[in-house]
């Protein structure tokens, strides 16, 4: 109905075809919805909906295959980069991405992540880092900040016994197999635009067969941080960004 009311020249925003009509299950204020949306917009804008195969993780975005209107496979916890390797090796012409949280990518899937990056698999890895296990109810993640409380670090993460939060993005940037490594956020319009540009670049690079592209999105978890969405974004800026600074970490050398 609304389509009839709005003249095409006045249309400033429309639903992207690369997302389905299913209602997202994410909590109010969570960054996943925005991250999904911009990845879908990139797929849409590049016109690669029929050429893209995604891999969903285990974690809050376990049902990502309900939302992306592209062919997808659901991987076991942490195994998405291995599954994506299997897909890309048999379908080298397809665009392949994984979408993973910090528990999935930086804890149980560390080996799969590092080795996929080290082999330089020509895939895009989207890494959502909110410093906590969301789906299972707020347990400590490898990325949980020092002193940060969670249900399994109720007195705050003690780095003497639990080690320091793992900077996976800096780690994979050291590997010759990665081509483009960046850390972004989606909590403000400016950041959303930057992140979308980064994802688009990463998708386009996939055709060059130059190696793995890795986009971390530092995000929030209002429910498990036990904050309002606005508070959580402020907390993220004040606490997460100093430890996980935003910006490109590895960019291809310009000719």
């Amino acid at each position: 109905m609304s389509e009839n009311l709005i003249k095409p020249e006045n249309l400033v925003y429309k639903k992207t075809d690369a997302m389905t009509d299913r209602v997202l299950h994410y909590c109010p204020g969570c960054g996943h919805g925005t991250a999904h949306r911009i990845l879908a917009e990139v797929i849409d804008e590049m016109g690669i909906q029929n050429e893209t195969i995604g891999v969903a993780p285990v974690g809050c975005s376990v049902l990502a295959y309900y939302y992306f209107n592209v062919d997808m496979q659901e991987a076991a916890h942490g195994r998405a980069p291995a599954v994506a390797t299997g897909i890309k090796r048999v379908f080298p012409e397809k665009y392949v991405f994984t979408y993973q949280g910090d528990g999935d990518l930086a804890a149980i899937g560390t080996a799969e992540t590092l080795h996929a990056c080290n082999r330089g698999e020509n895939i895009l890895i989207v890494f959502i880092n909110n410093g906590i296990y969301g789906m299972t109810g707020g347990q400590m993640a490898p990325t949980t900040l020092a002193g940060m409380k969670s249900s399994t670090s109720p007195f705050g993460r003690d780095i003497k016994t639990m080690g320091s939060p793992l900077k996976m993005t800096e780690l994979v940037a050291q590997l010759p197999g990665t081509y483009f490594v960046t850390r972004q956020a989606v909590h403000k319009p400016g950041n959303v635009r930057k992140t979308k540009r980064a994802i688009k670049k990463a998708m386009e690079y996939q055709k060059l067969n130059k190696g793995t592209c890795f986009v971390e999105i530092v995000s929030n978890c209002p429910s498990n941080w036990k904050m309002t969405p606005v508070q959580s974004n402020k907390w993220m800026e004040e606490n997460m960004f100093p430890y996980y600074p935003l910006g490109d970490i590895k960019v291809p050398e310009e000719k």
Partner: protein
Amino acid sequence: MKELRLMKGNEALAEAAIRAGADAYFGYPITPQSEVIEYLMANRPEDRTGMVVLQAESEIAAINMVYGAAGCGKKAITTSSSPGISLKQEGLSYIAGAELPCVVANVVRGGPGLGTIQPSQSDYFQSVKGGGHGDYKLIVLAPNSVQEIVDFTRLAFELAFKYRNPVMIQSDGIIGQMMEKVELFEQIPRVEPDYDWATLGRKNGKPATFITSLQLQAEEQEKVNLRLQAKYREVEKNEVRYETYKCDDAEYLLTAFGSCARITRKAMEMARDKGYKVGLLRPQTLYPFPVDAFNKLAEQVKGILSVEMNAGQMIEDVKLAVNGKTKVEHFGRFGGMIPSPDEILNALEQKIIGG
């Protein structure tokens, strides 16, 4: 024209995978099966057929690469030996749950733990009864020769795609390492997948395809399980394979699978020489198990000796099959030890004939 070669079991498996039109192999080295990936790397199947061969960082990664490729409708295979197969159980459960076709070979060695690199059959329970979590079944083929390694590798891909189910080839350190004359089948061309269940990239106008083993609603997950169980009943109806030797007049029955069946056959012949009417039933499929064949022979024989290179695993299925109709005993050597025909004959005389 027949193509005959003298080949090691592991190499024959690798060659058969290429010829079966496999699209991808993902594996990790482990004794006594490393020849599979070594043969593949040396033979450059990417040049012969376009088949992908990749050495993964772990058994876990390898089986998940298989998941990804199988989800694309491709013929994917991985191989390992017991400790490595344990690591693959997570992936096997997901593959069975997502109903993807794939082939896995286990060149079994003695356990538990790191165990030994010598041959064993102690992974029978793991292969046949599940291994990973949840109610699922692998179709399990048990070759007893290098020739059957080749034939079953081809068959395994056929069954995997027929039922969209993982198929396990349960070999062991003997079959994997020994050399025998083998007749190879001609190259089967690789095919471009065109399945509605596979992630091939969205077709214009069609809804997206997704592959998952997740159902958040219990009612839906029960439906998945019911569908799987219906499939397993079909497998049990259609795919039972076994061989019998001298069972027509048998008063006593020996049963064994894989390499152990060859030793047991020798014991059977020695028993015949001594005047005992002994037959041998060799299951070629461990799942589905030849229940009817055992049940029928149970009416005829005075006892069954299940000879296994383990502490007694297949004997449980034999007992279930004969359902108390006749005596069933076990004889085994394990931990990498191989029984001799004399030992088996002795056990047969003591436990079944004289017992």
